[in-house]
């Protein structure tokens, strides 16, 4: 995963409709390596196109992990 710069964080926030002040972006850039580990762990797992599929139960809460 490439290094993330402060400018990248500001641009990414702008794509989300958030005008992130530079100070907050710098704080995120400082903390980002730790958060990146979580993201890298998930993307490195390489889930297959069909494994496991996310499901939705129209009879129950879609967000319940027990459905």
């Amino acid at each position: 995963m490439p290094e993330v710069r402060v400018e990248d964080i500001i641009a990414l926030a702008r794509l989300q409709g958030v005008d992130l002040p530079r100070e907050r972006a710098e704080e995120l850039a400082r903390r980002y390596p730790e958060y990146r580990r979580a993201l890298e762990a998930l993307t490195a797992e390489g889930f297959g196109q069909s494994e496991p599929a996310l499901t939705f139960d129209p009879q129950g809460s879609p967000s319940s992990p027990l459905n």
Partner: protein
Amino acid sequence: MTRAALARIEERNPKFNAFLTVTAEQAMEAAHAAQEAYAHGRAGALTGVPIAIKDLFDTAGVRTTAGSKILRDRVPTSDATAVERLRQAGMVMVGKTHLNEFAMGGTGENGHYGPARNPWNPQRMPGGSSSGSAIAVVTGMALGALGSDTGGSIRIPASACGCFGLKPTYGRVSRAGAFPLAWTLDHVGPLTSTVEDAARMLAVLAGHDPRDPASSRAPVPDYLALMRGGARDLRLSAPTAAVFAAMDPAVRPVIERALADLRPLVRSITTANPDWGLAEAAQTVTSRTEASAHHRAWMRERPQDYSPEILARLDFGLLTSGVAYAMAQQARARLRARLDAFWKDHDVIITETLPIPPPLLGATEVEIEGALVNANAGLLRRTAPFNLLGVPACSVPAGFTADGLPVGLQLVAAPHREDVLLRLAHAYQQVTDWHLRRPAA
């Protein structure tokens, strides 16, 4: 009981900062009503019992801050469902307890209201986010407390302060009227000294609530009766050698002794553990993004009213892609399938609740397995996976480090098997007295 609790609050709260609001007048009114109820044979399950409520739960007419500056002056007009049920059972609410800001954290610190302090060593963290609830129980300022748990927020302070804390199955206890942190991870449960008291509170709290869309319709069993069923049939899964090696040297002997004490009580103890793989990563991504979705408007309109630490965590949620969130849910589904298979041959998973003793207040990093990690992440390491999976889990007092700091043993069971946790923890409390120890006044 109420006068004694209020007297202890007056004496001890300035030192430990367990309560953000004390409801003395209301408590005495409820205590008098309790006396009347007893006199006329109308006593409920909790009549007259002083209970502390985490300041995340709406309480009609009593300010509910969620540990925040933004909601500092908010006074709800109705009770959260959990509070309503406790009132109907006759509880005496003595006050609203300290928490991490918006329940976001496992430390018991708060940038707006100051830190709560560990009653065994006030220079140490009490754990969070239900910090005040745990302190209140251990110091006798309340006989029971209500907490919430999204990554460990009942179990962490229970372990750090030396009381029992139960996170039931997802949806077992209504979250209606509790300020959300992460919708698919939030749980509600009790903190108490004894397992029996927790079973009493759970019996009152549990049950379907149409106000909570995730509320379970599963029937509520007789927890108190089931609790007394013993543990002789239970098959336990204990930490592996690698997990033991990762525990702080101060924690390890306490857990080893706890397992030795459990061995005669149960059917078997093996060391087969499921592979938790991506649990920590999936929980982090899920928690941050769901929290950010809820806080988005305030983050835009009044970011200056958040503590910098909390704002940074919420900002990460804003920056996480939908793809990452979807993959976190895939990881969640995979872990759940793995755990479903595991329950065929095991009834309880045992871990340490905290791999380290409660850190010093203000610590931003802790050492785990020879590496420095973020303090908050370190505190959540063993508890967060079970929020992701929605299974019931508790922390039971298991002893103390050589420095006199509490150590908790985490027990985890299959969905809706709170009875298994209560049976095992109760049996353990019959042969140990850690839950009866109290810090020096």
